């Protein structure tokens, strides 16, 4: 930690060159039929020399500085780079060894920053001699891990509410996005249409019917079954500041996390769930990666009746409950939404034109389909198009009506979604960045959209608002800054 500039171990030149060289070999194998085989050896030697020279230059011009408060990685090549990694923002420092490292007696020092853009890959991978890497890791760990972590996950969990197998099945069937359900239904309808045509026309159904049926299973049935298996025997409880989740039929999940790590809470209801008077709660929690490397957004409550959902929300995460004073979208937003709906309707009509004519002609050519079924089949696509246009315009109207924004003292909320509705309650102290965007039409009507960026369970994510006056959305910026400047924001209470 002296601050002097050091380089990686020189074996990275060989390691990196061999890695790329293997790709060159594969490429040449693919091209072996097209090129002169006598030239292959020369190409291989030349490419290896070129790679060694290139990687030597990269190694020579890349330096690392381990300072008192940060690590600086600097590369002075054609594409210059300088990375500054403060210890306070690091999530972890690990040492890995693969086969080349074992051959050369080196180790890789992997530095992870708790950042959305580098959630899946380390921010810096530095190769050093094994003992040097271990020493650096030890010294850096002293700066990172200076407090104890105690988790008591083995305790039996008592659920805040009872989730029966029927609740789990309803969650599996109706928590899937409505758009996904509509798409699945469209494939099912096409499959049925093909089967009907083949029955009345007396011809064998083509592969299209089976493919559509498989698509329906893939889009609609499989996700539902997967959700049912995942959330079977669901339990949720809070003890102290820790939330515990337990669920799963074949593979069981035991999850626990501190409430302070929740960045946002989402109350979601798809259209079918809303018709049943149900909604579910999800949380944005960072760092809950499953064994398979998959990130998941924890569900705090399966689809339950609204009364139970409200109770669970108050008992489980009271930190995300406050008295709301929502703002509705202004009149300008309605015009923007209607113009967008008109454009979308035109696109849908244009896209459906050719298929409509095709189906009309095909059905007209089928002499066995007569009477009402024949007429319905001939006009089915124009009818569907007309319904889709009506649905788009209605959705724009509903979107205008339901979209809300409100900025409380510690929390703020976006409500969005004409079809699948989502109420997202966010903590100002978890906001990383705010973008306020204004397209040409929105500019004409004096409204903007806001996007709040925060670290989520799937890396970084942005949550967008509806159309509101720019100064209203800017209040999020203002409150975030005020909290930082006034000292109301306490970095020790926040996970990021």
């Amino acid at each position, binding site marked *: 930690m002296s601050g002097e500039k050091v380089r990686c171990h020189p074996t990275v030149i060989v390691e990196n060159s061999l890695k790329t060289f293997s790709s060159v070999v594969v490429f040449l194998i693919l091209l072996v039929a097209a090129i002169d085989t006598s030239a292959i050896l020369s190409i291989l030697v030349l490419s290896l020399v070129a790679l060694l020279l290139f990687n030597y230059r990269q190694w020579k011009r890349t330096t690392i500085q381990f300072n008192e*408060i*940060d690590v600086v990685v600097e590369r002075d090549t*054609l*594409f*210059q*780079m*300088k*990375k*500054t*990694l*403060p*210890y*306070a*923002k*690091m*999530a972890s420092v690990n040492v890995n060894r693969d086969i080349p490292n074992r051959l050369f007696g080196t180790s890789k020092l992997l530095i992870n*920053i*708790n*950042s*959305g*853009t*580098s959630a899946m890959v380390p921010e810096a991978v530095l190769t050093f001699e094994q003992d040097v890497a271990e020493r650096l890791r030890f010294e850096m760990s*002293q*700066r*990172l*891990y*200076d*407090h104890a*972590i105690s988790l008591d996950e083995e305790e039996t969990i008592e659920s805040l509410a009872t989730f029966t197998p029927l609740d789990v099945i309803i969650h599996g069937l109706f928590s899937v996005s409505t758009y996904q359900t509509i798409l699945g239904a469209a494939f099912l309808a096409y499959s049925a249409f093909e089967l009907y045509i083949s029955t009345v026309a007396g011809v064998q159904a083509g592969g299209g019917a089976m493919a559509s049926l498989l698509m329906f299973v893939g889009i609609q049935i499989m996700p539902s079954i997967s959700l049912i298996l995942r959330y079977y025997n669901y339990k949720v409880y809070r003890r102290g500041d820790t939330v515990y989740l337990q669920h799963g039929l074949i593979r069981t999940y035991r999850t626990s996390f501190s409430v302070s*790590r929740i960045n946002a809470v989402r109350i979601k209801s798809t259209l079918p769930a809303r018709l049943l008077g149900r909604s579910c709660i999800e949380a944005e929690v*960072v*760092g809950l990666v499953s064994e398979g490397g998959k990130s998941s957004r924890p569900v705090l409550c399966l689809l339950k009746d609204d009364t139970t959902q409200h109770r669970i929300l108050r008992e489980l995460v009271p930190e995300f409950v406050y008295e709301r004073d929502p703002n509705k979208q202004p009149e300008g937003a309605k015009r923007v939404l209607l113009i967008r709906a008109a454009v979308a309707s035109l696109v849908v009509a244009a896209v459906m034109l050719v298929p409509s004519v095709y189906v009309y002609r095909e059905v007209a050519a089928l002499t066995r389909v007569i009477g009402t079924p024949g007429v319905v089949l001939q006009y089915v696509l124009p009818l569907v198009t007309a319904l889709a246009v009506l649905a788009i315009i209605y959705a724009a109207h509903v979107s205008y009506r339901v979209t809300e924004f409100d900025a409380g003292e510690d929390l703020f909320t976006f409500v969005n979604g004409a079809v699948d509705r989502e109420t997202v309650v966010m903590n100002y102290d978890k*906001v*990383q*960045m*705010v*973008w*306020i*965007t*204004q*397209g040409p039409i929105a*500019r004409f009507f004096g409204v903007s959209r806001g996007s709040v*960026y*925060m*670290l989520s369970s799937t890396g*970084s994510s*942005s949550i967008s608002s509806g159309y509101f006056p*720019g100064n209203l959305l800017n209040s999020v*910026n203002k409150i*975030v*800054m005020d909290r*930082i*400047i*006034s*000292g109301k*924001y306490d*970095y*020790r209470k926040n*996970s*990021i």
Partner: protein
Amino acid sequence: MSFSSPAIGQSGADEGVAGGDGYRRLNPKCMISMYIGYAISYAVLLAAYLLLRTYSQEFLGSSYDLVQYAALAVLAIALVYIVAAPPVYYARYRYQITADKVDVRYGILVIRHILVPIERVHQVEVSRGPIDTMLGLGDVTITTAGGDATINYLEIEEAEKVADQLNNLIGRMLQERVSTTPTSHPGPAGE
């Protein structure tokens, strides 16, 4: 912790203050960099069009003429955009770095206003490609836990200066935290 908010990064050779609100403008050389980048992209688009025109007649059949007209329309729209976009981008681009926030406003058709609190900055990176190197320009990418924000086309000295100043601000903030937390070092994020 409390910061005053003077605008920093005031010494770019050609960058000027836009209005009296402390916002900075880009160097006009950014337009040259954009024109060169766009010209390369347009050349690729043109090559694709020529390939389409030469080899697709048989494949497209009766739709050939329609596709040709559509491709020409796309080329014409792209050309208009390429000619008009850099001056608009230059005219609209504003950035401001104070002791507590980075504020960037830019856009050609869609105008964006980005605000990044310094407190949330994880990493600052200065980068430049070959075209920018040729013109002495560079980009400063500011990474937070929730994503990136970039200040494009700064003069390289200015970019380095902005990055150093941001790093100093972050360093000062972290030092303050260490000094006000005597019992422990700042814990790792996510712990």
